[in-house]
């Protein structure tokens, strides 16, 4: 990791530790559907991105051009995913192949056997996580925000948990907000919201809630100007995080109003009883 140069929107004071690495940016970038992969270095520069996901596919022997790695700056942490895997075994195979590329041991586990909604299979994900964590991978599993699955992942040795905000590519934002909130409270691992975040305010909201980071793909890749959209997401993630750390003020508690005629009723008996202390 390049520690000397610090891009804009990166902060050294509030690092996110995953797999022993202290990340200065809490915006992860997905590169699917980007098309113009030559934009990646500009995106990294504009948004301060430090983690980028890629997929593993068979080489197309009739069209050998294009190697996404050639566009990814050397100091960026690569996060290959196991997209295409329909079972735990397939995910494990893809992970091992990805590691053989020599670019690190991080892996995002996606086990999806649902072509309609692309929802992940929590059971298969947990199974793959346990196997790969034992083999020394830094495992970031992608799941539906389910507390039981998340607990299994903690026990299986995951380095973080990545619950979806909404189905992949839907850009519908934090549809699963309540469930993600529960994960943030109950699970002692970084919670990285992945999938479904459509606009920067979604990402900001996730960070204000206490998410450790956000992974954005479709919203950036399909924007008219991916570089500036990435920058906007970077600002939003940083803003949400800063707001969380600044300690938001009080919001009104339902029913607790100073002008309510019920005020003073619940504890009035203490005054009456004061003599017997």
């Amino acid at each position, binding site marked *: 990791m390049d520690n000397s140069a610090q891009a804009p929107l990166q902060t050294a004071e509030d690092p996110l530790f995953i797999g022993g690495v202290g990340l200065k940016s809490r915006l992860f970038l*997905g*590169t*699917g*559907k*980007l*098309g113009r*992969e030559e934009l990646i270095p500009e995106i990294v520069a504009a948004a301060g991105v430090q983690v980028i*996901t*890629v*997929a*593993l*596919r*068979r*080489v197309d*022997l009739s069209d*050998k051009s*294009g*190697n*996404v*790695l*050639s566009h990814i700056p050397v100091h960026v942490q*690569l996060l*290959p*995913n196991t*997209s295409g895997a329909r079972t735990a075994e397939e995910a494990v195979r893809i992970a*091992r*192949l*990805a590691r*053989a*590329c*020599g*670019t690190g041991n991080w892996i995002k586990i996606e086990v999806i056997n649902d072509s309609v909604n692309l929802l992940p299979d929590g059971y298969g994900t947990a199974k793959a996580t346990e196997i790969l964590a034992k083999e020394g991978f830094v495992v970031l599993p992608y799941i539906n925000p389910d507390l039981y699955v998340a607990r299994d992942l903690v026990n299986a040795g995951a380095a973080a948990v990545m619950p979806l905000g909404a189905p*992949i590519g839907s850009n519908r934002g934090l549809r699963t907000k309540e469930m993600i909130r529960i994960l943030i409270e109950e699970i002692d691992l970084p919670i990285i919201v992945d*999938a479904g975040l459509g606009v920067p305010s979604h990402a900001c909201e996730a960070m204000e809630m206490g998410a450790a980071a956000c*992974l954005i*793909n*479709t919203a950036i*890749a399909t924007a008219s100007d991916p570089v500036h959209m990435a920058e906007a997401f970077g600002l939003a993630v940083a803003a949400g995080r800063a707001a969380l750390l600044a300690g938001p003020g009080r919001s009104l508690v339902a029913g607790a109003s100073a002008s309510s005629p019920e005020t003073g009723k619940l504890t009035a008996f203490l005054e009456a009883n004061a003599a017997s202390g």
Partner: protein
Amino acid sequence: MEQKTKELVINGESRLCAAHSLSDLLKELGLGESAVVAEINGKIVSRQDFAVTILAFGDKIELARFVGGG
């Protein structure tokens, strides 16, 4: 030694190749070594072994590389 052409199954397709080692095969296919991961008959071959991995007739070879993904 004579260079025999071998029938190999590469990414699911049958091909006749003259390559002796995996390194040779990648050169024959026009692929850079650094970008590719390889599996032969279900076993991953680490990059440092490409040059010394000798291909046999009928070997099933999977060649994969990173692409954009979410």
